């Protein structure tokens, strides 16, 4: 651990903030891609140095650093891209990079669950809603140029200031604090998946059940919120009051 790593953290967040501020869509003004590229390259270089200094002499650290940079860069591009579909694609990049980071750090089950749930299920839902709500623009100018509300950010300066201050503060605390001896996970009896399954089924059994109930309640709630009454054929014909047929029938 080198001295004054906290200033490097500040530098990384400041460069990232400038890159975000430059990269956010600004209405009709042209995007300053050159400046954005320079800022992102500088931020990537400085953060490579930061992660390298943090990891010290750990073997095989280059993949971890590169994946971290990919994850953060994908998130930056996701937030700044003016077209929502591309944002969704960059989100997949963030997910896959995070999955690989978790696998490298020994959390395989969580990593693969992340890839399946996010990149598989959640993202398909997002893209589905996106396609559903923007299909009318397929043959108009908005399809190529994007909507006005996608091309203009709201209060970019203050939002970037707030977010980067938050990240810088948290990062400084993480770097400056002495976390004591760092030990690898000593998993007893089997690999990560077996151990995690054991702890979920013993220590967190009730929580697992509650999570299942929560998922079901959310499913019913989502159906109730988003359903739309589609008029059927029998709704259009006026319904006859109960017993009308009996009254209309001729006496035998």
């Amino acid at each position, binding site marked *: 651990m080198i001295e004054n790593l906290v200033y490097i953290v500040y530098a990384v967040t400041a460069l990232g903030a400038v890159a*975000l501020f430059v990269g956010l869509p600004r209405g009709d003004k042209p995007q300053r891609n050159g400046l954005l590229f320079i800022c992102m390259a500088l931020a990537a270089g400085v953060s490579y140095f930061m992660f390298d200094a*943090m990891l010290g002499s*750990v073997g*095989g650290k280059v993949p*971890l*650093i590169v994946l*971290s940079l990919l994850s*953060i860069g994908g*998130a930056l591009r*996701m*937030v700044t891209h003016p077209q*929502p579909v591309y944002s969704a694609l960059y989100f997949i990049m*963030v997910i896959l990079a*995070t999955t690989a980071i*978790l696998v490298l750090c*020994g*959390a395989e*089950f*969580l990593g693969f*669950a*992340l890839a399946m*749930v*996010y990149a598989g299920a*959640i993202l398909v*839902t*997002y893209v589905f*809603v*996106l396609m559903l*709500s923007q299909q009318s623009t397929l043959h108009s100018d908005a399809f190529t140029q994007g*909507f006005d*509300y996608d091309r203009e*950010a*709201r*209060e*970019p300066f*203050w939002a*970037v200031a*707030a977010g*980067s201050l*938050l990240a*810088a503060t948290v*990062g400084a605390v*993480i*770097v400056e604090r002495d*976390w004591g001896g760092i*030990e*690898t*996970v*000593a*998993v007893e009896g089997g690999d990560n998946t077996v151990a*995690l399954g054991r702890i*979920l089924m013993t*220590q*967190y059994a009730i929580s697992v059940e509650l999570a299942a109930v*929560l*998922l079901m309640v959310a499913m019913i709630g*989502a*159906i109730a*919120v*988003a359903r739309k009454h589609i008029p059927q054929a029998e709704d259009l014909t006026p319904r006859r009051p109960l017993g009308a047929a009996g009254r209309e029938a001729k006496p035998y």
Partner: protein
Amino acid sequence: MEMAAPQVLMIVGALLFGIGVIGFLTRRNMIVMFLSTEIMFQGVLTNLVGMGLLRGDLNGQALGIFVLVIAAVEAGLGLAIVVMLYRRRGTLDADGWRTMRG
């Protein structure tokens, strides 16, 4: 190969969370706003795994599973609400609802 890199995980988590906050505040498309909240969930998850590595047990990862469940629930309900709002106004612009500001 397992690496003890809790600090790197926590820094990545903090940066992802900050980027998610910025995206949620600046973007006006409701779907991209929800995608930014998913980025924030990512940051929290990475942070939890880092903290778990620091403790040396699996409680952090178990908590991460529950965060994953909550993220799925949030995505489902949030997108249902977005679909409902889109039907009412015909746009995904969050400013279409600025009358709710009061």
